[in-house]
């Protein structure tokens, strides 16, 4: 299936190569760009069809599970999840580079029942496709939330995760995403047990604050930088004016002359 598609793409690419310099001729023979757009549209349509059918299957499954639970059946007799049916189907689309299928597979692969080594190999390959070919897509936005959490035990190793984040930083044209990548990197570096993690964190935060100053991540980075520079042991605590829960204003410096425990906390 894949090989056939690849050959098809190559054939189309070769056949249409001369028309690239003459776009007005494109009505007759599709250009390479049009051919790959058509291919992308076809994959997207296939994903949408899968997605809709899957929603139906999952709905039926959830209802059957609820019924089984209500009847008090033991867990072994609950219906099997549709994952076993859909994973291979969506994986085909993922391997052909369909971004939503890639993201779906990345989310599901850990529970697909495969060996850890296979799971990691798939993740590595699928993230690579997303960061190099779909950096500005909505699917990447979702997958980024998975990617930033990699690097720990049982997940993609920190070195590979950083490579992928580096690629994404270069490929995305969106400032918001660049800021999110820079903000996520220090946590991954820390998971790699890098002895220079603390230093690298400050460098990345400085870069973030300087290059993308209006993003929420930059604001948080500035806070961390401020805390490293002005909130070290031996420095005078920066004063603040604030209101308590009843709206009464007070200042930190009102407590000058007393020993103070300043406690950032919450009940939640």
């Amino acid at each position, binding site marked *: 299936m894949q090989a056939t598609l690849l050959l098809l793409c190559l054939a189309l690419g070769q056949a249409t190569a001369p028309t690239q310099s003459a776009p007005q001729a494109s009505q007759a023979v599709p250009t390479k760009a049009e051919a790959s757009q058509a291919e992308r549209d076809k994959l997207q349509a296939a994903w949408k069809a899968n997605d809709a059918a899957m929603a139906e299957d999952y709905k039926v499954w959830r209802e059957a599970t609820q019924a089984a639970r209500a009847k008090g059946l033991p867990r072994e007799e609950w219906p099997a999840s549709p994952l076993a049916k859909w994973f291979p189907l969506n994986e085909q689309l993922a391997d052909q580079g369909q971004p939503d299928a890639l993201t779906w597979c990345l989310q599901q692969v850990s529970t697909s029942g495969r060996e850890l080594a296979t799971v990691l190999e798939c993740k590595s390959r699928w993230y690579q496709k997303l960061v190099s070919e779909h950096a500005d897509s909505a699917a990447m936005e979702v997958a980024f939330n998975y990617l930033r959490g990699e690097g720990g035990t049982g997940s993609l190793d920190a070195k590979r995760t950083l490579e992928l984040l580096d690629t994404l930083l270069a490929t995305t044209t969106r400032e918001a995403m660049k800021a999110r990548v820079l903000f996520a990197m220090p946590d991954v570096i820390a998971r790699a047990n890098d002895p220079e993690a603390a230093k690298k964190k400050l460098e990345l935060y400085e870069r973030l604050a300087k290059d993308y100053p209006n993003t929420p991540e930059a*604001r*948080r980075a*500035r*806070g*961390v*930088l*401020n*805390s*490293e520079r002005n*909130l*070290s*042991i*031996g*420095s*005078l*605590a*920066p*004063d*603040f004016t*604030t*209101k*308590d*829960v009843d709206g009464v204003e*007070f200042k*930190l*410096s009102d*407590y*000058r*002359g*007393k*020993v*103070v*425990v*300043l*406690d*950032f*906390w*919450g*009940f*939640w």
Partner: protein
Amino acid sequence: MIPHEKTLVQRLKDKPFALVGVNTDTDKDNYKKLAAQHGVTWRSSWQGGTSGPICQEWGVRSYPTIYVLDHRGVIRFKGVRGKAMDQAVDQLLAELEAEEKAKQGSK
């Protein structure tokens, strides 16, 4: 955490000591209810959530975060909890007392 701080505040109620909170809860009514329940007598800045202005400015990313300041307002300890927090406070109170004694002696 809260019972420990309560004990500290009670033990030092006649000393030049204050526990100042920066609270990151989101629901004021719930906060007041819980504060009454747990016997929280100390004052807190109301941030309305963990992304409140002081939390951002101070770069707080985990809770609780503790700073211990001496009577001049200088940061002397960070991240001390439990017994270590008590010891830090006692040390700074002893410094303050010694300083005041020395002042009185020189008069």
